[in-house]
């Protein structure tokens, strides 16, 4: 399957064989284009997709050694994302499919962040608890036995990635903020400042409080020494990571456990995906906290950031479940996990 992803600022194409087995995974990042603006500019992102998508697809097919005759279908991100960006992928993908008489399956970018785990553990089956954390989303989901994905918790305000980006700006770090905090935090003390652990009802998240707390901490100090900056970054990161994992724990091990058990089976499976899943502290802390009690899958960083390999994996799953899309479709910027 040829897979295409253009929902935000990565232009990506991949070739994924059934299994799923990854044959190629090409990503052209636009970070350089957006850095001067301190964030992703939708029009610039769409323009870059238009110019680079076909060359990226070309490279994905080449490096997989795949000829057109070997392609059985096309998978593409239908949403959610920036509409002008999605449009490019959705139309290029469907034009290719039409011209080569191939079936197309439009998939949810969010669901794909969960299905990315299949590229590393192909035998993974539901039920699976998924934590999808990125610049636009912080969702706790359940990959159900019937193949669908149900949202069981979401953020009430900022997404985790947004919280990292805003925190980075407060600390005077460059865009993209998540990796900048991750790097700086390695030199800091995560216990230097006790940031509040945000609590929202149920399994929901909330990050605006901790962001405000960081702002106050920075304002309290006349000037930040390098060490203070690193300590703040480490403490801020720790608060976000801890808040995320608290909710995961509450979902995995509800107490008291009802008569039906936790609903996750004898050994629960946890998948963490999305751009924020590249964060080293999140990966390490999740391993410490759940490594011995659950089967934990956090895909390699290049499969956590936006990529088309995961779209291919999702395409194969959706294909099995509901078949290809019967008619041409538009981009759906507000699409959820379905």
């Amino acid at each position, binding site marked *: 399957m040829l897979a295409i992803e253009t929902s935000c600022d990565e232009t990506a194409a991949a070739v994924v064989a059934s299994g799923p087995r990854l044959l190629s995974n090409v990503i052209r990042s636009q970070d350089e284009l957006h850095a001067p*603006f301190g964030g992703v500019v939708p*029009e610039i992102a769409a323009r870059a997709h*238009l110019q680079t998508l076909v060359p990226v697809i070309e490279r994905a097919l080449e490096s997989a050694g795949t000829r057109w005759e070997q392609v059985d279908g096309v998978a593409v991100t239908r949403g959610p994302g920036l*509409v002008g960006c999605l449009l490019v992928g959705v139309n*290029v993908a*469907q034009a290719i499919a*039409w011209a*080569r008489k191939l079936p197309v399956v439009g998939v949810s970018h969010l669901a794909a962040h969960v299905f990315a785990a299949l590229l590393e553990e192909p035998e993974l089956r539901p039920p699976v608890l998924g934590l999808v954390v990125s610049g636009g989303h912080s969702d706790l989901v359940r990959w159900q036995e019937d193949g669908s994905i149900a949202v069981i918790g979401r953020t009430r305000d900022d997404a985790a990635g947004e919280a990292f980006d805003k925190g980075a700006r407060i600390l005077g770090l460059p865009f993209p903020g998540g990796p900048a905090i991750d790097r700086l935090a390695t030199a800091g003390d995560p216990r230097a400042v006790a940031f509040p652990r945000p609590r929202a009802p149920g399994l929901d998240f909330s990050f605006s409080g901790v962001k405000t707390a960081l702002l106050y901490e920075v304002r309290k100090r006349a000037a930040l020494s390098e060490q203070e900056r690193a300590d703040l970054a480490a403490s801020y990161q720790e608060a976000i990571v801890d808040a995320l994992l608290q909710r995961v724990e509450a979902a995995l091990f509800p107490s008291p456990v009802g008569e039906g058990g936790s609903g996750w089976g004898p050994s629960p499976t946890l998948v963490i995906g999305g751009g924020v899943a590249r964060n080293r502290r999140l990966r390490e802390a999740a391993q410490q906290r759940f490594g011995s009690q659950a089967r934990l899958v956090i895909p390699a960083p290049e499969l956590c950031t936006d990529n088309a390999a995961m779209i291919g994996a999702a395409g194969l799953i959706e294909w099995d479940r509901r078949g290809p899309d019967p008619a041409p479709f538009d981009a759906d910027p507000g699409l959820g996990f379905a």
Partner: protein
Amino acid sequence: MRLAIDTSGADQAMVVLDGRRLLAAEDWVRSRDDPPVLTRLDALVKRAGGRPDDLDGVAAARGPGSFTGLRVGLSLAAGLAYARHIPLHLVDSLPILARRATGEPATIALRDAGRAEVYAWRDGEPPRRMPTDELAGWLPSSARVMVEPAGRLAIWSSGHAHLEIPAAQRRPLSAALLDSAIWTFESQKPLRYDEVQALYVQPAAAEERRRKASS
């Protein structure tokens, strides 16, 4: 069999041609609940009696035009060209608009750019965006002007209203697109995929802020 598509403006069109011969054409007015353009494309090619494998060239209007329309048209064209390894052409939208005049093409084409601005083209020059109140100084007194939307010249520059080609003397966009496509396929060089770029009636807001900040 070749395909040309113009989704840059409010009036949109697609034609399928064989050499200089028109096989099928479709005109429509952009609206919110349009079906995907690919649905029309598929039906049009069928109506022309062709199949995807028969395509040996594709052209798309590059603007100036709307963000969404151009992205859809150019993405479809690029995908088709790549998948079938056929030449890809981009065509300027305002010369197509000028060819909507019956008889000789108009010498001037104007497309509303919003924000009291207009995209203006005259033969031999690249299109340029200008405030509508500069039109009076720019329009030659002998011009034949094609305007989109029709009738707007009287509002933009009332002294020139008589220069606008009246609605009764307009052809469907597809007729103009056919002429432009024939000329393009016969005389123009195809593009590389990384040259696929749209011209929008207005620059992106963020880019404009940055340009102002740096000047």
